[in-house]
């Protein structure tokens, strides 16, 4: 197969360093991967081409890069699946992280975030003499997360990290979940309360936008965003609800559980902690005013859907803690 590999290159030692595109025409086997082509270029055409790679079998995590604009492992991507009608692809360094040279990026921020979640098991109490007893299901569930090879594909494509490098990001949060979900970890009856408390703070689990980029990018099926959602569930369960994220989730569910639909007027108010949060309310005021003057304010009087009692029945049954006995009577959404 003859393919054209268009590579975004960067030479930090050039007189005027800047990124530029360079095209290579290579001939490879029909079942070759993107990495096979890059290695061929490096070994036979241009020894200055720089990239990290090692295992060739999607386990070492070295070769994450953007292929046709999206992060993935070069060694796990068959060329035939990604070439366009002209048998061409583009290859760029992973996003978010600083480029060192060509396709090699600086992972320091990645490791800083991993280190920030105290990534080692912290059991409470006395270690057993033998192994900890744990169900196979719980271990298989964790293995789905520990399958993470730290390749950085999720970080590369994270929409939040793109605008805010302080966010812990998908890899570190998935790593954190690997401990909070571990029956062996935790400082209170198997609940990793300290972890959940600190992960509920700013730059933590609630800053994720649920954009699914990391789920799409992950080459190992770890689905980091799903783990972040599971972290949120654990945090709320453990009572760490004094933050806008947890309030938002609870208020949203309450609104729908009570009326069947979303109350868009009251939701932001409840999310920021009610009308007593004067600063936040003032910051919404200009937007609310503009909306009002443009005739698009959500209805002040939120209506219930037809047959709402059926929705409330499900709410009471399926989320009794949140629904409470008062639903339908004294709810703030009434």
């Amino acid at each position, binding site marked *: 197969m003859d393919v054209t590999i268009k590579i975004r290159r960067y030479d930090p030692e050039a007189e005027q360093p800047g990124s530029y595109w360079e095209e290579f025409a290579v001939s490879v086997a029909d079942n070759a991967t993107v990495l096979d082509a890059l290695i061929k270029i490096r070994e036979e055409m241009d020894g200055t081409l*720089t990239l990290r790679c090692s295992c060739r079998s999607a386990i070492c995590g070295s070769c994450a890069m953007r292929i046709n604009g999206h992060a993935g492992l070069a060694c796990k991507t068959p060329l035939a699946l990604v070439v366009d009608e002209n048998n061409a692809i583009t290859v760029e360094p992973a996003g978010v992280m600083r480029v060192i040279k060509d396709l090699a990026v600086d992972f320091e921020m990645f490791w800083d975030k991993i280190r920030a979640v105290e990534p080692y*098991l912290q059991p409470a109490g006395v270690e057993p003499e033998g192994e900890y007893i744990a*169900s196979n299901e719980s271990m298989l569930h964790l293995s789905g997360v520990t399958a993470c090879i730290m390749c950085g594909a999720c970080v590369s494509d994270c929409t939040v990290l793109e605008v805010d490098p302080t966010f812990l990001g998908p890899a570190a949060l998935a790593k954190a979940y690997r401990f909070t979900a571990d029956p062996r970890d935790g400082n209170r009856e198997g609940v990793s309360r300290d972890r959940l408390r600190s992960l509920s703070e700013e730059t933590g689990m609630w800053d994720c936008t649920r954009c699914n980029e990391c789920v799409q990018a992950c080459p190992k099926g770890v689905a980091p965003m799903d783990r972040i959602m599971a972290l949120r569930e654990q945090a709320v369960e453990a009572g760490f609800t004094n933050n806008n994220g947890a309030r938002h989730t609870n208020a949203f569910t309450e609104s729908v559980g009570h009326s069947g639909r979303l109350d868009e007027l009251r939701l932001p108010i409840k999310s920021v902690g009610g009308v007593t949060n004067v600063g936040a309310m003032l910051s919404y005021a200009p937007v609310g005013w503009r909306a009002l003057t443009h005739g698009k304010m959500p209805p002040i009087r939120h209506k219930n859907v037809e047959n709402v009692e059926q929705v409330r029945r499900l709410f009471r049954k399926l989320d009794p803690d949140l629904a409470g006995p008062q639903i339908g009577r004294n709810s703030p959404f009434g």
Partner: protein
Amino acid sequence: MLEHDVLVIGAGLAGMRAAIAASANGANTAIISKVHPVRSHSNAAQGGINAALLDRGDDWEDHAYDTIKGSDFLGDQDAIEVMCRSAGSALIDMEHMGVTFNRDDEGRLGTRAFGGQRRARTFFVGDFTGQALLHVMFEQLIKSQVRSYEEWFVTSLIIEDGQVGGVMALEIRTGQLHAIRAKTIIFCTGGCGRIFEPSTNALIVTGDGMALAYNAGAGLMDMEMVQYHPTTLAGSGVLLSEAARGEGAYLRDKNGNRFMERYAPNMMELASRDVVSRAEQTEINAGNGVNGCVFLDCTHLGEALIMEKLSQIREIGIDLAGVDMIREPVPIRPGMHYIMGGIKTDIDGQTSIPGVYAAGECANVSVHGGNRLGANSLLDTIVFGERSGNHAAEACRSLPFVDFSEDEAVAREERRIKEMLDRPDNGDRWGAIRQAMGESMVRNVAVFRDEQSISEAVRDFAELRDRYATVPVENKNRIFNTDLIFALELGFMLDVADTIAYSAVERRESRGANARTDYPERDDENWLKHIVAKKGEVGPELSYLPVTITKWQPEERKY
């Protein structure tokens, strides 16, 4: 100058285990690796880790016997005893650190069957046990006080008056050379698989530590013992775990016959790796394969089992060969996978050079002898990594730092690097030399070998060595110059390649992985001994060491 009591080179499982142990023993410890620790090749161990747990009714002596028989009686039995006795606590340590081992119905650690062993004692995490262990060890490294030099490449050893003084290292991201002073050095640099083409090994597995130790005067022992793994994927040569056969997969020829019944009627597909690889190669040579491959058949295992326990190798088959093992047999063949040989050490990792240690695949203790059992390599790294770290930390207490001039050391290495960068372009490339070396090795020092073929490899290497002396480095810059690193690695590989070929031609018998068609029988009378290669004037100089036998006398090996 950067200065440490203990400097561990290589950050795979053995290296990190050694560093953590040394640090826990109070030594100022650093670990240096040409890749980030989690990129290390320990990742690639798929199937599991062996341990004989007493509370499962298993016995370390049974494990030891299986290991000794697997080694074709070339393993040192005192070392094997140390490893098998320590296995249980090493395993439980890893579990306590957080490894998510698969469990049995009672919630205890589950096992699977593995080759060459009479009972199931292989503990595992799906089919990515090495990765699971490596990442947990990295977590412990983060927790420790160990200083980590990531993406630093060790270019040479500093030896003053026979005593190790430290190392010279290239900081890859800046291209700057540094001298690091150390009282003790522990090589944990892994194997040398890239000397072979193809190989299951990662591109970083280039025998650096073996070559550095060899060039400093240490002996490389049993280098002819190179393991060809029975199930490597057609084409790319990537590994498909023995776990597949451990879970019940069959090997079939082109007519669907389970040919192993003719080679190992009792253990069948789960005979020792050398036995299975020879069987496959014999069938392929007899025309019973397809395109140089036989087949690994998992189709009867069922989707649920494959998804729970073999999901990663299934993906590899799909991605790299377009074959889904749930539905069809996968074409496989024997492929170079592991080297039993390595830097000769004692059971505490000490080499013949004072202050220099080695552990893991780069070392030869020797626990694997002529053939390593599957799932003994992870165990080897952890047990002897820890022992080396402990011993080195202890030794440091009474060792002084060796005095040497940092400026001179840096200037000397700088001149060597500059000479390489300044070479004129002569049209040759390191990639071409490496390819020629690898192909010669796989052609001539193969599953089956003889004097003529091995001698051909020796001649090839001499020629390639001449080419290497003038091979240009295309990239003249300093920042992240992988071109330069590859050229340096090739030098290491050529050194080690010679020791493999010389040792292979020397051992005039068939034992373990050294199957000589010109000497088809095992010859205990003349060859129940180790071959040690030391650097001589013009090439490796060979000598012999006795095999330590404690209670298991050599016997005929049948599976």
